[in-house]
């Protein structure tokens, strides 16, 4: 996604940082000034400026914690503003996560703040870099999972390890997707889970980490420590701890608790990027899907539904994800309510759609809402439009009923 993100102080309009994604030249300073100026002007007349569209772009403003204003300028995809608002909230939560609410809401020394808030740049870029993401949690507000048959056995390993860490919060992550988590991890709010997963995928691989994090909902002012250990390449175990144990202490335990699970971890990793069990065979016209559970805040996404690439695969996996994301944005907030957004009550959407689809020359998409699940399926253009409904229903029930898919 090509976008400009601007962060300023709400009080004085002092620019804090800008991020430019998608090979865009930075916006000239006067433009930034005017964008902020018009928002402040409206504000001083008791008008809340939310968003505007130009011929080809959209601008959204949002103030957070009475302290910072975020402005995003991006191409207009005619989707509801809810998605960009969601993105801005995520950016702000990312700042809380790594910097703490206290210091964010009460900026004392602007120069120092400017310097120190850079700690969030990598995570913010990851959130803006939607085209490069392999996951969709940022969009669905539900955390991505990888549903491997090995998960049920690995759960015991994880529970034992987190107990050794003296913490109730632990999860096992593969490329930013949760394979398994402790019961308490699932009680984190969806935005916390999504953010922690995004944080993990934003960081470059290493053996272990000890990162102070402020959980935006659970503990925005008192930091926890996120300890992570790379068990094998691309598989990390994460725990949220208090002051103890130290990183070195817990790292010493890694071998003892996980060594015998080595082969399980290897085969878990094999399931990336398919993300769901090989035992499930989906309709050959399916190129990808996103399955969301709105209650448990988990989602499963795959753009590699068939083990062997067939000659029909004219659309590569990156493009598939792009289409699914844009289909999601196209229907959510317009035809279907985004339930967990406080800014937009359900009453704004007057009709209660259950299903929706689009059909193009190169592909078709179909979505079904069946509380608490919602599925978005991407098909090749070959599938007859009338068949999509039943295939989508069948796919949904196949996935939801599978014992390995804990969604």
């Amino acid at each position, binding site marked *: 996604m090509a976008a400009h993100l601007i962060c300023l102080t709400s009080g004085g309009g002092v620019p804090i940082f800008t991020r430019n994604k998608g090979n865009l030249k930075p916006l000239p300073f006067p433009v930034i000034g005017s964008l902020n100026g018009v928002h402040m002007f409206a504000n001083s007349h008791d008008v809340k400026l939310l968003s505007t569209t130009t011929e080809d772009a959209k601008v959204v403003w949002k103030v957070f914690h009475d302290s910072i204003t975020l402005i995003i300028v991006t191409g207009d995809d005619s989707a509801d503003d809810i998605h960009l608002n969601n993105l801005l909230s995520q950016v702000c939560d990312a700042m809380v996560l790594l910097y703490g609410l206290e210091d964010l809401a009460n900026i004392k020394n602007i120069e120092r703040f400017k310097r120190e808030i850079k700690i969030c740049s990598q995570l913010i870029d990851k959130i803006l870099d939607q085209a490069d993401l392999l996951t969709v949690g940022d969009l669905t507000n539900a955390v991505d999972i990888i549903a491997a048959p090995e998960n049920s056995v690995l759960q015991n390993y994880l529970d034992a390890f987190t107990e050794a860490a003296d913490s109730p919060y632990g999860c096992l992550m593969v490329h930013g997707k949760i394979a398994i988590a402790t019961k308490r991890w699932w009680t984190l709010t969806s935005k916390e889970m999504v953010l922690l997963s995004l944080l993990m995928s934003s960081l470059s691989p*290493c053996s*272990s980490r*000890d990162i102070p994090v402020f959980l935006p909902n659970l503990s925005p002012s008192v*930091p926890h420590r996120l300890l992570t250990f790379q068990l*094998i390449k691309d598989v990390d175990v994460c725990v949220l701890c208090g002051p103890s144990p130290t990183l070195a202490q817990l790292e010493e335990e890694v071998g003892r608790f*996980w060594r015998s699970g080595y082969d399980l971890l290897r085969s878990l990793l094999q399931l990336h990027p398919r993300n769901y069990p090989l035992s499930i065979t989906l309709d050959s016209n399916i190129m990808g899907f996103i399955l969301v559970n709105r209650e448990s805040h988990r989602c499963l996404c795959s753009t590699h539904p068939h083990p062997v690439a067939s000659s029909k695969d004219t659309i590569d996996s990156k493009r598939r994800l792009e289409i699914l994301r844009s289909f999601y944005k196209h229907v959510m907030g317009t035809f279907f309510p985004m339930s967990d957004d406080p800014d937009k009550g359900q009453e704004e959407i007057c009709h209660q759609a259950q299903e929706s689809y689009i059909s193009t020359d190169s592909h078709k998409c179909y979505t079904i809402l069946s509380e608490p699940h919602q599925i978005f399926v991407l098909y090749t253009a070959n599938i007859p439009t009338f068949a999509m409904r039943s295939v989508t229903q069948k796919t949904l029930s196949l996935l939801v009923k599978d014992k390995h898919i804990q969604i």
Partner: protein
Amino acid sequence: MLSVGSLLDFDWHKHSESREAFSSVTHRHHHRLKTFGLLEKPANVSPYSPEEVRYKLFVVGKTGVGKTSTVAKLTGNEIPKTHNETAGIQTSTTYWPGKITQLNKQVMFRLQFWDAGETSLKKFDHIIPACTERVDGILFIFSIVDKSSFDDLHQQISRFTSTNDDIVKIAIATKCDQHAHCEVTQRDIRDFENNWKIPILKIQNIQESSQPDFSELSRLLNIICEYLWYRDLILAGKVTKGGAVVGRRPQPPVPTVEKYV
């Protein structure tokens, strides 16, 4: 200071007898280091495995000098293209086979680099103790295109070490590919080395094209390992500080017994 090559065979990677050891830690054709998860180790082809010795190294220096990049280079990870301040502590591991010349013995060095960003270091009390606890060596990083980062070393050295501790101290000059903007002179470097008895190594953290310079990497790792091994010898009482093996200027021998009880 230790003279280069006095304990370790610096050309060992060129010998055929080391082929097995090196193929277990590098990707065969492009000579890049392999990375290992905590449950993984270099595969042993031969029936007996070399002794593994583990060291903890703390990487310090001003923000943006290239700590994370240096660690990435020394561990075979991808070197970051842009500066992103490291949040909290990040550790990375390298396995490096070495040969102790005197003993004609192979050793597998396992170096764990502890890298922490300045903001976290200042803001959270537990970071520095975690990094300095039982540390074997400290790498002081500065950038040759930023004189202030070089001047800052004095403060860093007194902050994290004392003259009579037994921590290996090595300084590393980054961005040596940018000679044109060099702000630290050869003379500065010489004076520093003489003053502190801390060697300065030079590094270029750049994404290498098709043929990475393996000799630069192996020299750096060998030097680091050699100092660590030397320290072990001193601690084991096999040589005295400034002993005959090495061209090191005599320093008062300092008993550090209290530290180990």
